[in-house]
């Protein structure tokens, strides 16, 4: 998508045919050629943030020639690392992909866990790799000993028949780590045999910060509400998610067929929604009594009933709980028939409806679902809520496609409030919006992009929060409240298609540490304005001939970092609408504000690149003399490294006013001269005029003759 957007970005031409005579065009071309020639000689200063290639935190040297496939994740590649200050340390580096955000916000907390049974991040920074010269975010971890648990399970080399081994060597260390996660209110999100290492009798739980929470987690390790979400839209999750995964891990360790591993996710989710997790996942399996309690407890579908650290500790200590086998989650006295199948709980119906999107409209519009909720389930409030949604989405007879989509989505949230927000083929949690957007931008699917646009535009997140507050008395935490407030604000930004706004702005607002995805910055990992400006300055000699230093991603990135709320316009030029919102001037203003925020770092490459781009704006000035003056000024500022002087020249209202007044006067004068020339070319006019003049001269001459006659009459005494 990023590339598609970039393709749309073409150099802006003047809005009207205001091109001046050839002389001026030549002048601009000559000035541009001169600036670009100077720019091609420019040697950008090296990025001081990256002093050496393949190094993290000025200490950890990535050994690119020693890949460690055992520590690869489905997304990221692992390499050996040498710690320059402690060469004996056994470490590895994960080189993270640029198109998905890492869990940078939780990294400081996770770093403090420092549990010997957990691969916690030691250091992380952007590093330039010598193999490709590209920049990546790299995280350094202590290298766990042994092999992946999945490998050991396949090799059947672990004494899994021993409950003491499972309890002490596998379960206890993981529970220990999860206890620390729970204390921090965090979710690991990646507990599965692929991310657990075992060696020398010691278990180590793998890392969890290199990708969005649960992105690579197999679906069957997730509770239903996350299982049915898009991997990138699962959100941060809660500690209870990890306990569920722990329960699944337990099942994996026990002998049995584990049919659920090979069951398609959609099918598995449908059965879980109908029968509950425990009943589905343990069907036809014999679970040893020793593990029945913990599996029943951790696989509980209701979060508040699911086991946590407290029960786990007691279980590890040997306490027996006698947990009752969960029953089927039946809510209704009579089934709701949909797509030739009967459903006895709202969650299962919601899942079925989301899988048959187009068919759901009918049962929602004709009130069947409302009646079922009211009469069969006895939830009058929910039924009223569904009725309100129906009315707000066009009532029973509406056929508007967008309203249909909104109706289905809001109704599904009402039916299954803990489930993800669902819209057409998309299912995601509110706190997973940012990573979901980044995934969609990476894949560039227009349909998904449009759906995401609608998720934000319909304000489904606030609708979901409203359902939780109103019907379930759930208090949202601060992070979620901030997120909802931000989403409310972003709806305005989303509808604004100017530079710095739109869906791209949503991406950077929702993922604060996400690198700029502009195709211009390919190979660069840019997360701050300072880095962006340095990167553009370095790219100037290579890209200035064919590209603007701005696209929708860069604009949105800058606007997000500057927290801009209004369209970027040159207010001083408001009398000239074309100039006030001219792309090149908006670009200049955005970059100037970024440079201001970055303490006016000197950027000779970028200023020359910008100057060359600004010459297109000059075509909007009508007066050749003014064009020459402005061109000269811009040329003078081109290699100064500061954008402010250029902006000051361009936003000087005086020249715009002079140009406008002069142009109006010139037009009037031209018109008058045109009329005068037409008059002069008319032969009838010259004839009429010469007749008038001739008559008058003849008249004056006759007066002279008459006067002479009178004079002579006087002299002759009347006898002439």
């Amino acid at each position, binding site marked *: 998508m990023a590339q598609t957007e970039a393709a749309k970005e073409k150099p802006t031409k003047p809005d009207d045919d205001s091109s001046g005579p050839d002389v001026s065009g030549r002048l601009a071309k000559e000035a541009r050629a001169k600036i670009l020639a100077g720019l091609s000689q420019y040697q950008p200063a090296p990025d001081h943030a990256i002093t050496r290639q393949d190094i993290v935190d000025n200490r950890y040297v990535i050994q690119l020639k020693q890949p460690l496939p055992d520590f690869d994740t489905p997304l990221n590649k692992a390499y050996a690392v040498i710690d320059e200050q402690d060469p004996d340390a056994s470490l590895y580096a994960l080189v993270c992909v640029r198109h998905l955000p890492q869990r940078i916000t939780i990294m400081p907390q996770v770093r403090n866990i420092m549990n010997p049974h957990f691969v916690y991040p030691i250091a992380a920074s952007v590093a330039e790799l010598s193999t490709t010269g590209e920049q990546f975010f790299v995280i350094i971890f202590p290298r766990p000993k042994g092999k992946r648990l999945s490998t050991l399970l396949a090799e059947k080399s672990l004494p899994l028949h021993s409950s003491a081994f499972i309890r002490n060597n596998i379960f206890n260390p993981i529970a220990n780590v999860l206890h620390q996660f729970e204390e921090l209110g965090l979710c690991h999100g990646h507990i599965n045999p692929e991310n657990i290492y075992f060696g020398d009798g010691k278990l180590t739980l793998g890392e969890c910060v290199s990708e969005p929470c649960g992105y690579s987690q197999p679906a069957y390790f997730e509770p239903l509400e996350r299982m049915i979400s898009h991997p990138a839209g699962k959100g941060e999750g809660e500690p209870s998610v990890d306990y569920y995964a722990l329960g699944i891990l337990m099942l994996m360790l026990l002998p049995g067929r584990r049919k659920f591993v090979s069951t398609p996710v959609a099918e598995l989710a449908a059965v879980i929604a109908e029968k509950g997790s425990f009943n589905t996942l343990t069907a036809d399996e014999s679970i040893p009594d020793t593990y029945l309690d913990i599996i029943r407890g951790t696989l509980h579908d209701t979060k508040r009933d699911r086991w946590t650290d407290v029960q786990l500790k007691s279980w590890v200590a040997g306490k027996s709980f006698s947990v009752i086998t969960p029953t089927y989650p039946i809510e209704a006295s009579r089934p709701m028939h949909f797509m030739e199948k009967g459903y006895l709980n709202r969650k299962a119906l919601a899942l079925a409806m989301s899988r048959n999107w187009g068919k759901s409209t009918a049962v929602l519009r004709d009130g069947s679902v409302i009646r079922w909720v009211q009469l069969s389930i006895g939830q009058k409030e929910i039924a009223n809520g569904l009725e309100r949604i129906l009315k707000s989405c066009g009532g029973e007879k509406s056929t508007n496609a967008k309203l249909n989509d909104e109706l289905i989505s809001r109704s599904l949230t009402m039916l299954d409030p803990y489930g993800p927000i669902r819209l057409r083929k998309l299912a995601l949690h509110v706190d997973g919006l940012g990573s979901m957007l980044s995934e969609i931008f990476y894949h560039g699917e227009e349909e998904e992009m449009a759906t995401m646009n609608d998720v934000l535009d319909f304000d489904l997140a606030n609708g979901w929060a409203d359902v939780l507050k109103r019907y379930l008395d759930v208090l949202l935490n601060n992070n979620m409240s901030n997120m909802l407030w931000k989403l409310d604000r972003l709806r305005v930004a989303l509808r604004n298609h100017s530079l710095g706004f739109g869906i791209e702005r949503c991406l950077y607002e929702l993922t604060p540490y996400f690198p700029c995805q502009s195709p211009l910055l390919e190979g660069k990992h840019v997360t701050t304005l300072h880095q962006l400006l340095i990167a553009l300055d370095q790219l100037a000699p290579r890209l200035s001939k064919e590209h603007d230093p701005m696209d929708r991603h860069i604009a949105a990135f800058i606007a997000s970092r500057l927290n801009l709320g209004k369209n970027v316009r040159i207010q001083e030029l408001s009398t000239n609408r074309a100039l006030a919102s001219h792309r090149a001037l908006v670009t200049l203003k955005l970059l100037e504000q970024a440079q201001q925020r970055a303490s006016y770092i000197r950027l000779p490459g970028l200023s020359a690149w910008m100057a060359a781009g600004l010459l297109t704006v000059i075509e909007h000035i009508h007066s050749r003399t003014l064009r020459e003056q402005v061109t000269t000024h811009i040329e003078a500022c081109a290699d100064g490294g500061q954008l402010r002087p250029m902006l000051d020249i361009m936003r000087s209202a005086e020249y715009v006013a002079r140009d406008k007044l002069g142009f109006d006067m010139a037009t009037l*004068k031209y018109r008058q001269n045109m009329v005068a020339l037409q008059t002069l070319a008319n032969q009838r006019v010259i004839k009429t005029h010469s007749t008038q003049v*001739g*008559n008058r001269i003849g008249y004056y001459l006759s007066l002279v003759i*008459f006067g002479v006659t009178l004079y002579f*009459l006087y002299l002759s005494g009347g006898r002439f």
Partner: protein
Amino acid sequence: MSDPFQENTNDPFADHPLGAAIARAAAIAAGIEIDKPEEVTRFARMFWRVIALITSLLLIILLQIGFLFVVLGLLPAFIAYFLDNDPKKYLFKAIFYCNLSATLPYLSRAMMPDSGPASLELAMLAPRTWVIVYGSAFAGLLMVWLCRFLAYGTLTVTYTAREQFLTGTQEKLLDEWGTLVRKRAETEF
């Protein structure tokens, strides 16, 4: 370089002495009435008619036969008056004054005490008198034609110079302000 923002005027003819005359000629050529209001014209016409009547009565009393001579002698001028459509009637005036210049000497001679009206009667009988009187009127007409011809020649030269000046100004405007000036001038007014 001259300042492009200083050059302006609302009247395309204001900067040229012939401007008003050209404008008037253009208006007349286009058939646009630029005369005085009709009421003023009617009053003036009435006024002059009354004056002519009183003058005629006075001349009949004073000149007697001489009045007949005046009427016959100034016949070309009277014809010119009715033929001249120009509101200012310069053609008529020119013929009138030339005609009068030839008529007056005969009248003045007749008014001498020693000559008397008899001399005028003799003059009226002589064809030479009428040749002189009517010839002067014709000479007035010829003189006006000649002046028109000369004026045509002079104005053609002046118009050409003016045209060149305006064309130059247009080129300068295009050079300074671009072709959009022409497009806008052609479409927006």
